[in-house]
């Protein structure tokens, strides 16, 4: 086996946790352009997307020690960091609040009570099961959110789930995503 060719994102993250800057440069080359692409699709102006993509990569460096390949995929982990960097920046970095913190996903804290650790393991098993049983239409909506150059309002509309008025409410809540960016500019 050619180990050099087999270097995975997991390996890179583990090396980054040890302070390996070369590994960081490799992961940066792979993910920073994707992260910027994601932010542009959420409606971020170019310069903001560029700054936030760099912020996300700095955050990835700082948090690499909490990455555990047994518990999360590297791509999921990078994604959550990118999304949270965006959300935190929108809040002007006051406090990390709304979105699930990475610590929930992969980091077992030393302060954590044993039963909390057990609960976390069960949750991870359940996430894997939930992923397998995820309805196709939900998978599809996630993909739409990433790959279609449409406002999220339209995507919400496409969700033809039998939820009646919930749908109209969601359309309203999502439509203002643009407004948020305008005030940030």
């Amino acid at each position, binding site marked *: 086996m050619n180990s050099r060719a087999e270097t995975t994102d997991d390996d890179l993250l583990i090396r*980054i946790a040890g*302070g390996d*800057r070369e590994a*960081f*440069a490799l992961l940066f*080359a792979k*993910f920073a*352009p994707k*992260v*910027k*692409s*994601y932010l542009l699709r*959420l409606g971020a102006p170019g310069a903001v997307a*560029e700054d936030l*993509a*760099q912020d996300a990569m700095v955050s990835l*460096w*700082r*948090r690499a020690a909490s990455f555990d390949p047994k518990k999360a*995929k590297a*791509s*999921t*982990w*990078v*994604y*959550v960091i990118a*999304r949270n960097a965006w*959300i935190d920046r*929108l*809040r*002007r970095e*006051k*406090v990390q*609040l709304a*979105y*699930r913190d990475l610590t929930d996903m992969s*980091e077992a804290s030393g302060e954590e009570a044993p039963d909390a650790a057990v609960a976390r393991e069960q*949750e*991870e098993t359940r*996430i894997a099961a*939930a992923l397998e049983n995820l309805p196709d239409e*939900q998978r599809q909506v*996630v*993909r739409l959110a990433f*790959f279609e150059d449409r406002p*999220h309002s339209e995507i919400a509309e496409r*969700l033809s*789930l039998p*939820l009646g*008025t*919930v*749908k*109209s*409410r*969601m359309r309203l*809540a*999502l439509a*203002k*995503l643009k407004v*948020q960016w305008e005030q940030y500019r």
Partner: protein
Amino acid sequence: MTLCHHPADEVLVSYAVGALESGFGLVVGAHVGACTQCRVKVGALEEVSGGSLSDLPDASLGAGALQRTMARLGRVPAPAAIDRRPLLERLPLRPRRWVAPGVWVAAVDTPHSRDNRVYVLSAKPGMSTARHRHSGAEFCTVLKGAYRDEVGLFRAGDFAAAEHDLEHLPVVLPGEECVCLFATEGRLKPRGLMGRIAFALADV
């Protein structure tokens, strides 16, 4: 914790892909933080999102992006301390305003859209709040205590979404004050003089 009232699946999808407005995302996040069932769903959706991220076409980065980023790295990764205080203590709240005996509101300091309101409201045990009608979407997560309205019983962690056509009269359960986090689109339309005064004073 086993909770009774959850966001609709499409709300969780929007939340997972990062598409909810900040105030609304905050309220959903407060529920997800308290609800194992929804965390599991969101976790699965994040895995799909992670896969989608990898499949996105590359955006071109500015010249020297890597060098600039590398210059910001510490020698070894040093994660920030984890803030494990309850959400209510971590929320950046503006000063409380008493709007009626036993009721205060405090705006949450987030850069939400000017048309929206994001705030915490606390009402004393047994209090019957003003009957009101909604003019837009409203998300609410109970942070402490419990209330009951025509829809059901909402306890700490439960999530409530109000429609524009919902008119309800929430009543706080006895024993403990009830503290809720709200994101509201547009203005509430309270019925009755007392309600109008309270909401006008609150101005959140």
